[in-house]
């Protein structure tokens, strides 16, 4: 029986080239018409050391990891024990290892996999310039039924310029691998991909966020590198200039957030990307963005916390600081992308929200969204483009912080003639003049709250799926969505009715919309990847959730897996 999705891990130390192999496999599979996903895991060594490419390929869009891996190809066992828990096995999995590296590690025994020995190193040695990773690739392609031609095409492009021998060696490696595969039985190939497919993209969540920012109108970025957000910046750096924008590397995050304030004050939509420690350094100035009503977007690619924590692994534990990390009463907007591909939509929408509301927006992405690469259908065009309300006329009566009905006040931009104003972090009257008077403080606090709470966020506030009238609701945010969606589908396949509500808008808590979306729920299962159930607590603070609430959360570094959620849903 053919499969609609297969999960494959390639692991090895140092020079084994697992990442290149994984990337080639993903690309080739994409060319062949499959969807797919690839993540990476690395040991603590800065360079070399153990590493693994974690792939999932499918005939349908796959943007979340499966419960386990169907195929593990181990060129060696390096410090496998250190991250074996990132590579659980599925029932019936096959582990393919080099006999020279000794026995399969004990940690794999409980899963009782089918172990096959393939002398990768010997096979590679037998080829002039041969490499183990090519042997592995050939083997995998054969096992899953991926036409080698797609791999060869990919390798030809990649090795162009390296001479004919290099390509020949790779081809020979693939062949050798395919040969070794012949002896392996019991691995079902992938079903054929949909032939009527449209354009597809290959991108990471961090690249998608970068593109979303630019499409939303961003033309300025100032930033300080930090894992796992750096690739947002590294994508923006060469791309912003193409659209007339720029990226500036700063001395620290205090500088980057404040450069954004300056650029945005000048009328240029602006973004930065960071992670927990950097976000913490930005909160004082985010408060200034709130008080001075200066729009900007911070893409916070979450990693394991607290403190330096686990920089290279994912977690959804920065919700608290994103929502509540500013001093004083400082209403602003927090959003979260629901998948790798959705990093594009959510970031673009966030630029639109920031510009429309003249407020800072924090986008809560995370390492697993940001650094995994997915094959997705070409994203639909997104209507949301940042537009700032500017004054129609500018004269002495101009009030920068005018008390409008919707709380949004026209913002004059430097260069506009007729009046001016001073953007102010002190409490102020509608002109922006500092004042400690009670009435001004109350009016401005109310105005700033009104504009973000009263805004019509429209349909993008959440994504819903499943059975609209089901009494079990799985409620997710950000990266907990894909595993929960898959879990829901599995449970629905068992005949249960379940619906999914995946929130893109985290703050302000969209109480009315959530209430409507949860209507009729008897069980609300709130799924998130952190230790204290931050989203569940946020919701509880602001509304009464219907029925019984089931907080389902645990910290990283392991990704949430559909199976854990299925187990919970079955128990309801």
């Amino acid at each position, binding site marked *: 029986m053919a499969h609609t999705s297969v999960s494959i891990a390639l692991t090895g130390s140092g020079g084994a080239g697992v990442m290149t192999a994984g990337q080639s496999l993903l*690309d080739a599979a994409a*060319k062949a018409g499959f969807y797919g996903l690839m993540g990476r895991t690395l040991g603590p060594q800065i360079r070399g050391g153990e590493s693994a490419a974690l792939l999932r390929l499918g005939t349908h869009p796959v943007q979340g990891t499966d419960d386990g891996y169907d195929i593990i190809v181990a060129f060696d066992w390096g410090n496998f024990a250190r991250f074996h828990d990132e590579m659980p096995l599925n029932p019936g999995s096959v582990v393919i290892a080099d006999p020279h590296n000794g026995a399969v590690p004990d940690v794999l025994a409980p899963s009782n996999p089918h172990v096959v020995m393939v002398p990768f190193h010997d096979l590679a040695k037998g080829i002039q310039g041969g490499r183990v990773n090519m042997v592995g690739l050939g083997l995998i392609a054969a096992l899953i039924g991926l036409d080698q031609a797609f791999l060869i095409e990919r390798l030809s492009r990649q090795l162009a310029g390296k001479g004919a021998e290099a390509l020949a060696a790779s081809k020979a490696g693939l062949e050798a691998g395919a040969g070794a595969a012949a002896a392996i039985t019991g691995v079902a190939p992938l079903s054929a991909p949909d032939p009527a497919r449209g354009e*597809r*993209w*290959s991108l990471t969540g961090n*690249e998608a966020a970068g*593109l979303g920012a*630019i*499409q939303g*109108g961003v*033309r*300025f970025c*100032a930033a300080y590198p930090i894992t796992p957000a750096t690739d947002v910046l590294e994508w923006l750096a060469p*791309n*912003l*200039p*193409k*659209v*007339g*924008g*720029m990226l*500036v590397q*700063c*001395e620290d995050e*205090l*500088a*980057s957030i*404040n*450069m*954004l*304030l*300056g*650029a*945005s*004050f*000048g*009328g*240029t939509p*602006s973004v930065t990307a960071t992670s927990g420690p950097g976000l913490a350094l930005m909160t004082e*100035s985010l*408060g*200034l963005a709130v008080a*001075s009503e200066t729009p900007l977007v911070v893409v916070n690619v979450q990693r394991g916390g607290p403190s330096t924590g686990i920089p290279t692994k994912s977690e959804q534990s920065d919700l608290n600081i994103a929502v509540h990390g500013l001093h004083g009463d400082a209403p602003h907007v927090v959003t979260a992308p629901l998948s790798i591909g959705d990093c594009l939509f959510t970031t673009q929408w966030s630029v639109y929200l920031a510009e429309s509301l003249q407020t800072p927006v924090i986008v809560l992405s995370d390492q697993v969204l940001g650094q995994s690469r997915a094959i997705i259908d*070409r*994203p639909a065009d997104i209507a949301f483009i940042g537009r700032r309300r500017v004054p129609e006329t500018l004269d002495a009566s101009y009030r920068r912080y005018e008390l409008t009905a919707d709380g949004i006040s026209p913002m*004059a*931009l*430097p*260069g*506009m*003639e007729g009046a*001016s*104003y*001073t*953007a*102010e*972090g002190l409490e102020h009257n509608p002109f*922006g*003049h*500092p004042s400690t008077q009670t009435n001004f403080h109350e009016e401005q606090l109310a105005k700033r709250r009104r504009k973000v709470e009263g805004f019509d966020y429209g349909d993008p506030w959440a994504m819903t799926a499943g059975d609209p009238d089901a009494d079990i609701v799985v409620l997710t945010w950000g990266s907990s969505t894909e595993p929960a969606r898959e879990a829901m589908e599995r449970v629905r396949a068992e005949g249960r009715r379940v619906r999914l509500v995946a929130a893109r808008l985290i703050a302000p808590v969209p109480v009315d919309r959530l209430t409507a979306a949860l209507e009729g729920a008897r069980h609300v299962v709130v799924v998130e990847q952190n230790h204290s159930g931050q989203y569940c607590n946020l919701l509880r603070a602001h509304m009464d959730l219907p029925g019984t609430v089931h907080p389902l959360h645990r910290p990283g570094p392991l990704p949430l897996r559909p199976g854990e959620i299925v187990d919970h849903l079955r128990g309801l």
Partner: protein
Amino acid sequence: MDVPLEETPVYKVKSYKSDLKPIWCPGCGDFSVLSAIMRALTELQLPPHQVSLVSGIGCSSRLPAYSTLYGFHSVHGRALPVASGLKLSRPDLTVLAVGGDGDGFSIGGNHFIHACRRNVDMTYIVMDNSVYGMTKGQASPTTDPEWPGSKLTPDGPGVAAFKPLEMALSAGATFIARAFSGDPLEVARQICEGIQHPGFSFVHVLSPCVTYRPEQKTWRERVHEGFPEPTDDRREAFLRLLDDDAFSTGILYKGRTGAFQPHAEATTRAVALGDQFVI
């Protein structure tokens, strides 16, 4: 000053002045700096709406609201990155940053040295009174180590005073000047030249705090024209500073420089950027 006044100037000093009454103490040096800035802008006939004035927090940082320029009263220590972001994204504007010695050299010290290196085309005016005026009289980086006037450091701060000009020069600034607020014409002259200098210009203004450092009234006697002409030689500038008593005024150094300004010219439509992801 090498900028000829137009015959009938369009902008007068009062074009740059707002109605807001400064909160400063009578006699505060910052009043003169405010008027010197306006004088410099008048001199250069810069349209107020094309000038922007960014500050941090402190008595001196209250300055923007007293002007008709586009102002940004940001948070403590962050005037320079705000100003840099503005100027980089809006090179058409004239951008000034202002603030105090605490704002600029204490909490904002890192931005100061990196702004000197980065050399964005803007002018930074520090009103140095060797004290935190706004928080009622604590030692700042430029305070004498023995000064016993603050309850926070009753035996004196005990730390060698920060040398703003030396620091700026070491950090790579290409325009460095010092003036005394009691000589607003000189302050204005330096600001004019700073604005015209292509790159980061640092104007260090000794601006007495009459309330917490009344003894600074003697500054008038202590200042002297130590840098009659700018040098464009870094070595020479260092040598001058090694002999400086912290009261030499004038333009110390004007280096040859290309301002930092990343090229930004649209060649592609935003939506077309997605093409690079097509399989």
